[in-house]
């Protein structure tokens, strides 16, 4: 950055170093050419849907009668804020995301600590452990639905073996949300754990040795040394996971369709059903925009953190 400015000012001043200036100019032209296809494409692909959906959110637009569309200004938003189901789905979205995030970090931290040792075979185990991250949410959601099945599902079978009562997981307003959270935890804990592990392994040996000399127990070492050192990593990964959880659609849609009632009805599901089941496109766009705003708060924080670290 600084160098290019310097070169630019040299350029303008018409200094004697003509070959250098010409080279800088041709390099900038080259850089623009390389960057332009991706940049222009992304610009078009974001500006168009952003403006279109913002405009749509101020319309009364029924997909089955597009000819009757008309501008209603902020009415969709006002209606939304008075709508009970909307607030319920905001609540479910936040509970789903925050609970999943918290559990993933607690288990992830313990697992990372478990992996953080010098033993042969750890690499293979780590590789096996990452597999859930790459599995398809649709296939995964159905797999878990099979295991949650009340009469022949595996989970109830084991509960019964332990002398515990059977639960109709996905039909219960109390258990459906925890059941869905568990699947998200299953899929994403490995991701969190392996990133924390990489952080743990980048802690310099001197620090570890000093801790060992001081006679710290494993717990003290984790609590007083590892956790503070990992805080920047935890922030970044936490925000990535939080944002992805807020956007989650496929997993929940496949497992419960948002039910029973509104027990697992998150904002993405609300926006989808409003748009593609009730055909109220204006309302659906307004719901999406609320989600965009919530996501953007955390995304801005994330970018800010990253920009500071890049300095």
């Amino acid at each position, binding site marked *: 950055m600084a160098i290019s400015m310097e070169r630019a000012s040299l350029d303008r001043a018409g200094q004697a170093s003509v070959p250098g200036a010409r080279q800088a100019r041709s390099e*900038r032209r080259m*850089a623009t050419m390389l960057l332009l296809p991706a940049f222009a494409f992304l610009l078009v692909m974001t500006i168009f849907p952003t403006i279109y959906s913002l405009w749509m959110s101020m319309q009364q637009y029924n997909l089955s009668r597009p000819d009757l569309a008309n501008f209603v200004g902020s009415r969709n938003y006002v209606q939304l804020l008075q709508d009970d189901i909307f607030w319920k789905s905001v609540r479910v979205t936040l509970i789903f995301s925050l609970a999943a995030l918290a559990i993933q970090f607690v288990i992830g931290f313990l697992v990372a600590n478990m992996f953080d040792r010098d*033993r042969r075979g750890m690499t293979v185990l780590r590789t096996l452990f990452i597999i*859930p991250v790459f599995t398809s949410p649709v296939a995964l959601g159905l797999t878990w639905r099979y295991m949650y099945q009340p009469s022949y599902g595996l989970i109830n079978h084991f509960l019964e073996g332990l002398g515990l009562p059977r639960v109709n997981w996905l039909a219960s307003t109390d258990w459906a949300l925890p059941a869905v959270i568990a699947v998200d935890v299953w899929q994403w804990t490995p991701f969190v754990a392996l990133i924390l592990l990489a952080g743990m392994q980048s802690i310099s040996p001197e620090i570890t040795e000093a801790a060992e000399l001081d006679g710290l127990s494993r717990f003290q070492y984790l609590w007083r040394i590892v956790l503070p050192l990992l805080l920047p990593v935890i922030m970044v990964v936490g925000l990535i996971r939080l944002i992805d959880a807020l956007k989650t659609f496929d997993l929940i849609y496949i497992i419960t369709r948002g039910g029973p009632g509104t027990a697992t009805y998150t904002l993405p599901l609300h926006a989808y059903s409003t748009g593609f089941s009730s055909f109220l496109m204006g309302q659906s766009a307004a719901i999406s925009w609320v989600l965009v705003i919530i996501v953007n708060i955390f995304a801005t924080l994330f970018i800010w953190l990253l920009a500071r670290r890049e300095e």
Partner: protein
Amino acid sequence: MSAASRPGEVRGLRGGIAGALIAGFVLFWLFPIYWIVLTSFKTPLIINEKTPVFWFTPTMENYRHLFDEFAFAKPLLNSLIVTTATTVIVIFLALLASYALARMNVPGGKHIALWMLSLRFMPPIAIVLPFFIAWQRIGIIDTHIGLIVVYVAFNLPFAIWMLRGFLVEVPRDLDEAAMLDGLGHLAILRRIILPVIAPGVAVTAIFTFVFAFNEYLMALVLTSRNASTVPVTVSKFIQPYSILWGDVGASATIQLLPILVVVFLLQRHIMRGITLGAVK
């Protein structure tokens, strides 16, 4: 990568037991995958058995049903076409852009990189509705192209960011020496840089491929009959009064296999890819 010893770390026999416990934990965690693969080889009778069955005579019936009744070959082909095209285009565009961002003086380059990364956070549900209406008007709804264009837009930011991370790590002397030899930027990228970051490109390609292959919401909205992908087809196994678990198992297994192979072939690099940007 081997970790230095940690306070309170156990060795010898007790260390061996700890290792076995870790292995047990990982296998327990992966149990759902084992279970669904097992299910794919069961007859419907065994699947609906009240007591879960672990030992049985395997059958290929579910796979036959999947391809005969659901014509699974077509969505599989659709998925492969869309996913491969997406990956190729994304990697091509991302290589050029990330090279410029990582190794050339682009005015405002840092801001452009961060802006691109921020696009990764856009909720698909907010984007899919405008594209649904626009694609209908243009006439590319339910086509490969329609889905590919959206998938490229969704994967490009992350791919650029990831490749940029790999590129920043290549020592600068390498291109400077090449430049003194009179090589242009494109030649440097192709002949000097690309061989060095090949694992990084492979990992980025895999992340793109897996994302596009697994994506559900946009495929659900933007395709219907002709271009519908594997996840969309699989979600139709949920029928009003039952779920076709045998077909679910078979299709899940088919989706899982290529991923398992690739993850193991590139295991070390995948770890790098996953931690990239988060730890550095």
